[in-house]
């Protein structure tokens, strides 16, 4: 088991983005001496982080990476990871867990935008809030998250789970506008409130326990259900789309 602890150095400019796709168990199980882009300059990772390594490498599955400090500008942590574990003690920047296919990312603070974009598998747990496009696809793309699980214990921004194709996106707080728009599969669960969800939904299951503001008129009511103590109204849609098979269940709503 190898444990790599990365402590963000105090002299790092908090306003310069750091492109750190190299921070992933695959790479760290082989070597630590990688480079990252800070702004438009290529630097060694030791210029950005103080690094402590414990234990011997035995493949990505037995590699754990711990990020210490406010890493809100450190982007693409865990991109393409397939195994192992990343623990972020503070905040993390944009695109954390992009294209992730396996393993676990646990974020103690807040996550930036695009958390788990186009994820294929594995799991992400964010104890704080997540930004916009949490668990979504690429802008304009057809297929978003295809598998895996994302759990956000706080709130998420706009366009959460856009183009969701498979897997589960679970938000314990509130979501912004257009959660689950263009959904084509998978499950979306928002325990709090949200605004205008699931526009142009094709398929999949979305549930909002709280209140939906500006509920779209293009959903057809098909019944009522009780789940985990929440009384929900069940809709099918989005009927603006031909042969729509999506299910949207909401606690309460007011129409647009």
């Amino acid at each position: 088991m190898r444990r790599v602890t990365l402590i963000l150095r105090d002299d790092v400019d908090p306003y310069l983005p750091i492109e750190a796709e190299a921070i992933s168990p695959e790479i760290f199980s082989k070597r630590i001496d990688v480079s990252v882009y800070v702004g438009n300059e290529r630097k060694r990772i030791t210029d950005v982080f103080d690094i402590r390594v414990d234990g011997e490498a035995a493949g990505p599955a037995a590699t754990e990476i711990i990020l210490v400090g406010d890493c809100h500008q450190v982007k693409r942590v865990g991109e393409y990871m397939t195994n192992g574990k990343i623990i972020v003690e503070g905040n993390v920047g944009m695109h954390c867990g992009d294209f992730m296919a396996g393993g676990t990312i646990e974020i103690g603070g807040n996550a930036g935008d695009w958390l788990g974009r186009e994820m294929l598998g594995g799991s992400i747990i964010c104890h704080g809030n997540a930004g916009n496009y949490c668990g979504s696809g690429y802008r304009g793309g057809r297929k978003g998250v295809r598998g895996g699980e994302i759990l956000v214990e706080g709130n998420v921004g706009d366009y959460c789970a856009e183009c969701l194709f498979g897997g589960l996106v679970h938000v314990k707080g509130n979501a912004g506008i257009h959660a689950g728009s263009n959904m084509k599969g998978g499950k979306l669960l928002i325990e709090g409130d949200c605004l205008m969800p699931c526009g142009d939904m094709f398929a999949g299951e979305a549930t909002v326990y709280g209140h939906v503001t500006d509920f779209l008129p293009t959903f057809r009511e098909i019944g009522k259900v009780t789940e985990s103590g929440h009384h929900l109204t069940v809709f099918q849609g989005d009927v603006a789309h031909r042969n729509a098979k999506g299910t949207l269940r909401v606690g309460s709503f007011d129409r647009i």
Partner: protein
Amino acid sequence: MDYIINNAYVVDPINKISGEIRDIFVSNGRITDEEPKGAEVIDAGGCLTLPGGIDSHTHICGTKVNFGRYMSPEDMRAGRAPRRKGMRAVSGYSIPTTYGNSYRYALMGYTTLTEGAMAPLEARHTHEEFKHTPLQDGLVLTLFDGDWGVMRAVASGDIKRAAALIAWRLDAVKGYGVKLTNPLGAEMWSWGKNVECIRKPIPDFDLSPAEYIKGVIEANEMLGLPHSVHLHCNNLGKPGNYTCTIGTMGLVPDLNTKRQTAYLTHVQFHAYGGTGWNDFCSKSEPVANMVNLRPQVTIDMGQVMFGRTTTMTADGPMEFNLYRLHQDKWSNHDVELETASGVIPVIYRRKNLVNSIMWSIGLELALLVKNPWQCLLTTDNPNGAPFVKYPEIIGLLMSKEYRDREFATVHAKTASRVVLPALDRELTFEEIAVMTRAGQARALGLIERGKGHLGPGAEADIAVYPIKPEKIDPSRQYAEIIRSFAQTKYTMKLGVMISKDDQILADNQNRTFWCSPQVPKEYDMSKDPELIRTFDRYYTIRMENYAVDEDYYLTKSMKIETETML
């Protein structure tokens, strides 16, 4: 810089040179007979040397293209290349950045591009994008398919007035030629309808597409324009539309001795049989036969290649039909009093029967039209495929073996709907040279401008491909053909080396050719009360703000004044 290109295997169909080892002398941007002194010597080593490529129908600049970019940010994930020495960063596949277009065309040996459709009202945007397409000369065809003034003039039988209106507008928007996209379709589309082939008159104007096409062809010839009417026929993409295409070709008189009288573009999309998608089939044979019978008609293929792309056209209703088929993204645009447009992304799949038939039809047209000067190589970039697929199309046309191999991978039922497997013809290097540069130069009236050939006095647009025609059998070594047509050894434009292997070596070499027909005073429409009233009442822009400023919007303006017969 002057150049001597030694030992070049020259194919120059306009000067009737079909594969001779020669030396080419370049001095002051032009090809000369005399050996220049102090010139840089380049050894072509017996490699295929052609005039610079000319694309006679492509969509690379303008609002439609840019809207494709807005709609498909995911397209920019492909084709990314970082900045290199002398090259900007580029991205995009079917609708790349303007520099991406320019670099890729340059590497394929292309030095002249024709934007196939520009809405006159949006000319500024088109010219601005051409300004940033640094390595090719640009020509812009201007849309007249729904021009109220011209429609009224043709309906009342006043062809001279129609010609005068076309002349005024071409001059105002710095256009090169006249494009008709689904003639009169845009007007009907503003009522949510479309025209049905060419015979039925549209309401309010009491004018049929057939009358309009004939009127505009006549007006075009009156103005003495270098290019003929550039026609995208009615009913594009509908099963059974080949009768409409043949009917349209039947309308075309033979009015010009130097070139065709009508240029029918992307005919692959217009050669469909059947009554619906279930019995959809190829009707390339009757269409090609009609082209063979009518020398006044030139067509281009509009070949479809499998993969992802973006379709864009001024044919608004057709794009709406496509949207209803695909249920994906769609954009639609109405250009006041002038034209319309639509954009949707598509994926052409081998496993799809209709797509496989479309792929076959384009190739069939190129193989069945006997005279290569009458059928030019295009994909209607990016509608059929992005232009980077041209080398593959050349490979398919030159090799029956390659066609058969590809045919084995398409939808199994295709064989019963097309004639492609029965065609044995394999095109030669000379025919390919005609279909990619010489034919275009003739069709666009550019031979007099020194384009499309390598005779003395011609502009030194030269492409040297890394292939020795004497030592290769294209019908078997098609992989090599594809590889070498994808990237030249040298591309030269007007005597400037713009690319060498995969390196871009120049910038700011682009010029814009445009036509200003010289009409007599009584036909000067800038003072015409009816046109002024049209602007005052209906346009959102004032007439005095309409014209494109030549100095500001055109990098290097190449004005062509034509003599008219008004």
